[in-house]
């Protein structure tokens, strides 16, 4: 079946512009996660959606970052007034969100470059 898809695959934007990154999770997965991966670094947790519960936003680095998940499926990560330090690969993952399976399935990521 189809995996997690993300769009765009690459995004170059000017400092100060807003960007929207999209994630389509695997159908039936109730949990969705966003991570940031700076060059050569580990995965930095940003935000976590689980079903209809309030999202865990504890990893968002500033109020310029926000995310929403519509209809329990597609999610959009928005970065306002982008800064050069926002340059990174943004990874989305989804999982069943149940005791039967904890495995997170990752998308290929969106490489964001802020010039």
């Amino acid at each position, binding site marked *: 079946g189809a995996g997690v898809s993300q769009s765009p695959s690459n995004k170059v934007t000017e400092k100060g512009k807003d960007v929207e990154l999209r994630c389509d999770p695997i159908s039936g997965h109730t949990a969705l996660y966003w991570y940031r991966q700076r060059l*050569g670094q580990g*995965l930095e*947790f940003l935000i976590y959606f689980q079903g209809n519960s309030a999202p865990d936003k504890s990893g968002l680095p500033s109020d310029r970052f926000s995310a929403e998940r519509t209809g329990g499926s597609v999610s959009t990560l928005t970065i306002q007034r982008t800064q050069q330090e926002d340059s990174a690969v943004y990874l989305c993952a989804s999982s069943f969100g*149940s005791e039967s399976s904890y495995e997170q399935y990752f998308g290929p990521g969106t490489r964001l470059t802020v010039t």
Partner: protein
Amino acid sequence: QQQVKQSPQSLIVQKGGISIINCAYENTAFDYFPWYQQFPGKGPALLIAIRPDVSEKKEGRFTISFNKSAKQFSLHIMDSQPGDSATYFCAAKLSGAGSYQLTFGKGTKLSVIP
């Protein structure tokens, strides 16, 4: 409290050798420990995972060793191959109903040389 510390940061192993990557944690409430493999330009993918009620799990050339008392777990790659060259991340999940978030280590870049 929720950190997972991974070492080494990078590792070079000759083909046929054993690659060993270590992770340590502090929070005894973690109850699931996966390893993810990431190739350049791709998202991480689950390689193997273990729960704390067993001390070892083996899948092909990949083995997780788990030491609950020391709060450490490690990934062993036997007969390492150039195709294993990738970045490896350990992770841990907190126990508790509805808790599915993973805390990741910072990753180990493995290079297997012919």
